[in-house]
């Protein structure tokens, strides 16, 4: 039993890293644009399908394929922002953008159904689904590579935010949009690029998700509800909070699965409800006041 638990914890941490990456995109978008991107879940699935197509049709290795899918998803994100999000103004903007991204999610889901059908698929790259024996644990390579990649990308995201001029304008916009505009930051450009970056990470997250789970167009709902639970738990808009919450929640789910496999998903919702009852602003919510 102790052995199963420790294996579950190792799995949870490795997968949690990947969820952290997807949640980082979601929470970044929220922080800068004050938007909850409901389409994030189905965009992860879109990223997974793109990797799947590149692998099965063009025989491109899944990690090399990211060089194509990440820029592609970035462009999709910028287009979604340009076409729909940018146009919404006024007091009801936050609620409306939520509905708009929900509608975008439906459209993408419908297109994925049309292109790929309803059957579940999984990316079965021979280089990734072999197992390795480390410190007494059996782990598939994809979990290790995925975790390393996720950590690298999250570090890159941090570097972008805290070490570059662009990152400074993003953080300024997060703190006070009006003031950022006054000091000469092109807020619309920052918003568009942030949305693009937030969506681009779903390409990487989706690749690992697609290699470790079987999925179809409908899997986006399951993903978005987990991601929402994670970013609310971590405090919406807080990157560090999202990372911590992702690893914590996925590990918890992985441990609960040992005893109650069918109810493990409920951990997310239960945690979400408990947090909202006792700490409505999450545990690391720096933007709590504005968010309300």
């Amino acid at each position, binding site marked *: 039993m102790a052995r199963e638990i420790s294996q579950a914890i190792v799995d949870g941490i490795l997968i949690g890293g990947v969820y952290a990456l997807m949640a980082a995109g979601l929470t970044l978008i929220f922080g800068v644009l004050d938007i*909850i991107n*409901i389409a994030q879940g189905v965009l992860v699935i879109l990223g997974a399908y793109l990797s799947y197509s590149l692998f099965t049709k063009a025989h491109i290795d899944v990690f090399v394929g990211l060089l194509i899918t990440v820029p592609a998803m970035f462009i999709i994100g910028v287009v979604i922002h340009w076409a*729909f999000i940018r*146009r*919404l103004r006024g*007091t*009801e903007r*936050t*609620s*409306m953008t*939520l*509905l*708009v991204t*929900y*509608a*975008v*999610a*439906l*459209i993408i*889901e*419908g*297109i994925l*159904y*049309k292109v790929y059908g309803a059957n579940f698929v999984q990316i079965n790259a021979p280089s990734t689904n072999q197992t390795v024996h480390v410190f007494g644990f059996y782990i598939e390579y994809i979990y290790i590579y995925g975790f390393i990649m996720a950590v690298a990308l999250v570090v890159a995201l941090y570097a972008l935010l805290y070490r570059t001029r662009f990152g400074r304008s993003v953080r300024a916009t997060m703190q006070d949009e009006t003031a950022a505009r006054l000091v000469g930051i092109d807020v619309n450009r920052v918003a568009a690029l942030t949305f693009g970056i937030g969506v681009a990470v779903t390409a990487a997250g989706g690749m690992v998700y697609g290699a470790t789970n079987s999925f179809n167009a409908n899997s986006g*709902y399951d993903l978005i*509800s987990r991601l*929402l*639970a994670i970013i*609310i738990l971590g405090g*919406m808009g807080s990157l560090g909070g999202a990372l911590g919450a992702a690893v914590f929640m996925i590990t918890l789910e992985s441990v609960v699965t040992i005893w109650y496999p*069918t*109810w493990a*998903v*409920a951990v997310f*919702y239960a945690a*979400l*409800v408990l947090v*909202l*009852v006792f700490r*409505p602003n999450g545990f690391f919510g720096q933007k709590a006041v504005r*968010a*309300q």
Partner: protein
Amino acid sequence: MSTSTDMVSVSTDEAPGAGRRSSVLKAAGLLVLAIIVIAFPKVYSNPSVTNYGVFALIYVTVASAWNIFSGNTGYISLGMAVFYGSGAYALGAAASAWHFTGTSAFALLPFAAVVGAIIAVPFGLIALRVRRHTFIVITIAVFFIFQLMAFNLSFTHGTIGMNAPFISWPSSGYNTPFYYIALAIAAGTIAIAWLIRRSRFGLQLRAIRDDEDRARGLGVRTMRVKLSAFVISGAIAAMIGSVWFLYIGQVQPNTGFDPLFDLTIVLMAFLGGYGSIAGTVLGALIVEPATLWLNTQPQFSGGYLSEILLGGVFLIVVLFMPRGIIPTGGEWITRLRSRGRPAVIPATTIGGPKATGSVSATSIGSGSPGGAR
């Protein structure tokens, strides 16, 4: 901050009635409408046509119930399917436990409404603590909890779902009684929505929509008021959900708790006119038959097309006519009448005799600098 546009949208469909003549006209119009909807299944007795009628009325009811809570308070709920599905499952479970067979199952409709109300209380107590997008997220989370329970609890029978008590009506006339039951519930719901809108309770709800903190400052017991509206809306949705269950004869987790359902309801309300009673009904009457028709066309089979279209129409409505058909159409008519001169909509509506409560809630603070919300 809410400015004059907000006040207008609050009071759009209670523009001052121009004396007795217009109210006589209105009554006559309602009478004609009532005759048309009552005579509909007599004129078109073909089951495939009455099927459209039954589904349209079911969605009119759910959308109107949504409007009682979300349209009045501004809290956009994406959790109506929680009540709809729960109503279906509650009726199924009660019928099999207490041996209600055949038409006697209709006696359980009030029971489904009570279950909906009971679910709405803890749901509301948790979700209504937070506002705006956090509220929407919680309704989504609660929705997924219920879907998960339907999949995993023992009495719901997992993915197989539940079968409704068999009703042995001949298939040619099967739809007609359902049509009248749904019509009665839909009419009742619209009447409740209308009564609430005219009441002090309705004014309190709309004061919350305009500015909740200020409403509380003015003495509105916001939590109690919000929760009451939420419970009413949930009870109605559960009741019509159980009618739907009896009508189609079965329920599965992904049909009873369908994420598309929630967005469809919101689309109906936004299409017709967010917050307006007639607009919501109109939206439901447009959207539901259209999706039903699309899903039955063989060349569009698979359902994905209705998904894409639903999303597309929603985007167009939200982006280009955010206030819906009825308010936007009303503006166009006014513009036509005024022949290009700047229309005077805001002045007339604000000055309207009925717009007192909600306007006073906003106008008290209209001089103070806003925006720091």
